[in-house]
């Protein structure tokens, strides 16, 4: 009746996950009860859960990422403590528990922190920058978000019901095959990635179509803000790469569930095929994550330098070059597996070539700053911190791309330091920069600068104190994923790294404090102009937060830096505005489809993990029924009458006029 599920699935003998799970459960229940008692449920349901507004969905993505960042961060803290004390001792974590932690940490950080964070920012900002009202497929957008949430939910469920994979974040076979991992850990891993992967693919298709087909009047390709370009590149990569992940995981699941032989040791299965497939997805994946961050830095650097982006066209070219090359280097992830010198040399060189367009980008940012009027607001701090950090990460990347060097450094702490260097210094710093930069746009008030700067400095320092020792330990021969060790020279570095982790955590606390303080002072921090940073692209041309329809009229774009041009020309010509003729606007109606879909996906995923077949069928029927019900809707749009549009837009226009005259005074 319940498949493999019984009481032994609850780890009563392991206090840490149980207590953690219990606390979280109590927390969630408390929030739920509070929501219901205070009567917020209808508001949540109508304004958020069923919302198909790209801005709301973007915010929810970022919220999901932030919560999961805390989860993944606790895993990181646990691992650093373990390695600091596990010298000639077992430490405080049993080995198989430690293995689950590093697997869950990697999985969560890549799939449920970095991905939702960048997808959330793209969702929030790109339609605004393109001057349009929504993404191409609003309801699908909501489906994508909720499926990602399902994946995250399943991963967290593994904390209390059953176990998580002990295979590392990529579940290499044969370790992940049934014979070596008979438990449900790998199934949790595979199904949550499978479900959230569908969500990601949906988001990718949506954003590609949005950028290619929905730009406002006059927004030619070479007038799109840099962030739109990197969004396009990143989502093209999603569309091309995520199906590979889907197929690979499907094969692994077929092996595990039906006794197939894709990657098994017996009957002719081929483990190297898994390596090739997973890295054909995995290497593009790191660029899926980092390209949007490059876009954010481009926007931030040019805004806070008060200059147009230097070398816009070379930046576009570099972005698209990275997009293509990132598909041709995957083999550098297994130089050591005996492909032979020729193959290794070719892929080594190909890997290093990516450093060229990346270098172009760095120089462009530097030249943008050169001679600019630089303001070191928090987003700009993250951007500068990124440039310094990413150069180091890029250099160590080129180092591991040299096959002979990689034979020494592969699977070592050095590698761990390298990819954290690029992922934290690149993706996470980018996400934070974007968060600080666009927060006023999303919520209508700025974030507290003092706490923001403290958050930056603690995170920045903590990052170096944590990861520089790992480079050293790697050089001293320490391999990754050690539960305990006996080499005395490694010990001091592990202790320093643990201290660094503590500093890093202070940075995270500062960020939380920043939110709390800013929400409390939101009246004082209110942004009435819609343009708190003196921005250059169209998202600043509407009010903060923008009305549901974003723009009363599709803006007419006449050059790069669309909004900057408008401001300059409005000043020069001191235009007398006649009252524009407002028209009715059609907007997509809210829909519970996404939420309901995710509900059935959760049931189905859980049932599949535990082999509860009747429940799988139930989930499947439910999903199909949702699809039909959605297709049966008669009214998927509603109309905002012109008078209402006018009333909303008039306020915005007033603010903007005062802004223009203010700017004229400078």
């Amino acid at each position, binding site marked *: 009746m319940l498949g493999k599920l019984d009481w032994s699935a609850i780890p009563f003998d392991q206090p840490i996950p149980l207590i953690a799970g219990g606390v979280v459960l109590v927390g969630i229940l408390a929030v739920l009860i509070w929501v219901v008692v205070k009567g917020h449920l209808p508001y949540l349901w109508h304004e958020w859960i069923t919302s198909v507004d790209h801005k709301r969905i973007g915010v929810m993505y970022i919220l999901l990422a932030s919560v999961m960042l805390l989860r993944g961060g606790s895993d990181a803290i646990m691992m650093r403590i373990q390695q600091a004390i596990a010298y000639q001792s077992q430490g405080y974590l049993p080995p198989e528990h430690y293995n689950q932690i590093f697997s869950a940490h990697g999985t969560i950080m890549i799939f449920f922190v970095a991905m939702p964070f960048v997808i959330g920012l793209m969702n929030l900002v790109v339609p605004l920058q393109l001057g349009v009202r929504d993404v191409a497929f609003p309801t699908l957008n909501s489906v994508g978000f909720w499926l990602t949430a399902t994946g995250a939910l399943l991963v967290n469920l593994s904390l209390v019901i059953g176990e998580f994979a002990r295979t590392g974040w990529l579940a290499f076979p044969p370790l992940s095959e049934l014979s070596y991992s008979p438990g449900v850990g790998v199934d949790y891993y595979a199904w949550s990635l499978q479900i959230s992967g569908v969500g990601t693919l949906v988001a990718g298709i949506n954003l590609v*179509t949005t950028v290619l087909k929905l730009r406002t009047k006059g927004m030619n390709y070479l007038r799109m803000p840099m962030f739109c370009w990197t969004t396009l590149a990143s989502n093209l990569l999603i569309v091309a790469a995520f199906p590979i992940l889907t197929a690979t995981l499907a094969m692994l699941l077929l092996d595990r569930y039906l006794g*197939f032989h894709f990657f098994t040791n017996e009957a002719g299965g081929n483990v190297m095929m898994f390596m090739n497939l997973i890295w054909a997805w995995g290497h593009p994946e790191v660029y899926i994550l980092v390209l949007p961050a490059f876009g954010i830095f481009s926007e931030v650097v040019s805004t806070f330098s008060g200059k147009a982006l230097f070398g816009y066209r070379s930046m576009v070219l570099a972005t698209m070059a990275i997009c293509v090359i990132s598909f041709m280097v995957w083999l550098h992830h297994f130089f050591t597996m005996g492909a032979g010198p020729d193959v290794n040399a070719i892929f080594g060189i190909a890997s290093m070539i990516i450093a060229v367009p990346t270098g172009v980008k760095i120089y462009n940012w530097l030249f943008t700053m050169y001679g600019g009027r630089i303001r070191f607001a928090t987003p700009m701090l993250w951007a500068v911190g990124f440039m310094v950090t990413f150069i180091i990460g890029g250099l160590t990347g080129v180092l591991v791309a040299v096959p002979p060097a990689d034979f020494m450094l592969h699977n070592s702490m050095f590698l761990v330091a390298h990819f954290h260097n690029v992922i934290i210094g690149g993706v996470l710093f980018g996400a934070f920069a974007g968060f600080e930069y666009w927060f006023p746009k999303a919520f209508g008030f700025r974030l507290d600068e003092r706490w923001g700067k403290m958050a930056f400095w603690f995170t920045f320092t903590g990052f170096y104190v944590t990861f520089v020792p790992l480079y050293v330990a790697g050089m001293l021969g320490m391999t990754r994923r050690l539960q305990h060790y006996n080499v005395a020279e490694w010990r001091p570095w592990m202790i320093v790294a643990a201290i660094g982790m503590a500093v890093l955590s202070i940075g995270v606390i500062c960020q939380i404090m920043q939110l709390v303080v800013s929400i409390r002072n939101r009246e004082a921090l209110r942004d009435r102009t819609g343009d708190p940073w003196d921005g250059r692209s169209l998202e600043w041309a509407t009010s903060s937060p923008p009305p549901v329809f974003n723009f009363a009229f599709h803006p007419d774009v006449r050059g790069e830096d669309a909004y900057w041009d408008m401001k300059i020309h409005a000043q020069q010509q001191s235009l007398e505005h006649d009252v524009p003729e407002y028209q009715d606007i059609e907007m997509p109606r809210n829909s519970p489809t996404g939420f309901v879909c995710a509900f059935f996906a959760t049931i189905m995923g859980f049932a599949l993990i535990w082999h509860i077949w009747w429940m799988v069928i139930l989930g499947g029927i439910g999903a199909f029924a949702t699809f039909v019900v959605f297709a049966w809707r008669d009214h998927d749009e509603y109309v905002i009458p012109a008078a209402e549009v006018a009333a909303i837009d008039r306020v915005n226009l007033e603010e903007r006029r005062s802004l223009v005259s203010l700017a004229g005074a400078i």
Partner: protein
Amino acid sequence: MAMTATVGHAHADPHHIGVVIEHPGPAPKRTVTAYGFWVFLLSDIVMFSCFFAAYAVLVSQTADGPKGSEIFEQRNVAIETVCLLLSSFTCGMASIAADVRNRFWFYLGMAVTCVLGLIFLAIEFKEFADLVARGYGPSRSAFLTAFFSLVGCHGLHVSAGVLWLLTMMAQVFAKGFRADVLRRMMCFALFWHALDIIWVGVFSVVYLLGSGV
């Protein structure tokens, strides 16, 4: 936002590359839908190529089990292929009928498409069942694993297509040729034709090449 009514072209085109073709603004809904669905189909084709690649890697790994030439039956495959190609034609007829709002030909075209799809599925199912009965199931060898997965993945797509097809007929029955129904019909047609193209790949790579060795 009509603040920039009069801007010289020198300004609009700072790089002086010549004429700038002004982008007209967001595309109409039908274009957007079709475009998005195309992008989805491309991603689906990427997924299929992984299974094709796996098949190519594993095709000789028979683990002393049967080879392709020992289990493929050309006659059945030929019938399957004819069914699918014909169904693409009838699906096209149904699309045209939908465009000219002719219910009778629409239902007829869709019904024939459905029947052809079901025949295809039945033959495939029988092929699989026979193999399993002879002990040549997917867990017999890596070759059979890859074979069952690639062909089965296509079969699953066809099954989903049949479900979608029936839903489309019901939609036209209940709602008529409304704009959104027509957009969905267009996507369905794209999907069905794409499955045909993929089958041509399966047919050539698996059955034609496979019966040679």
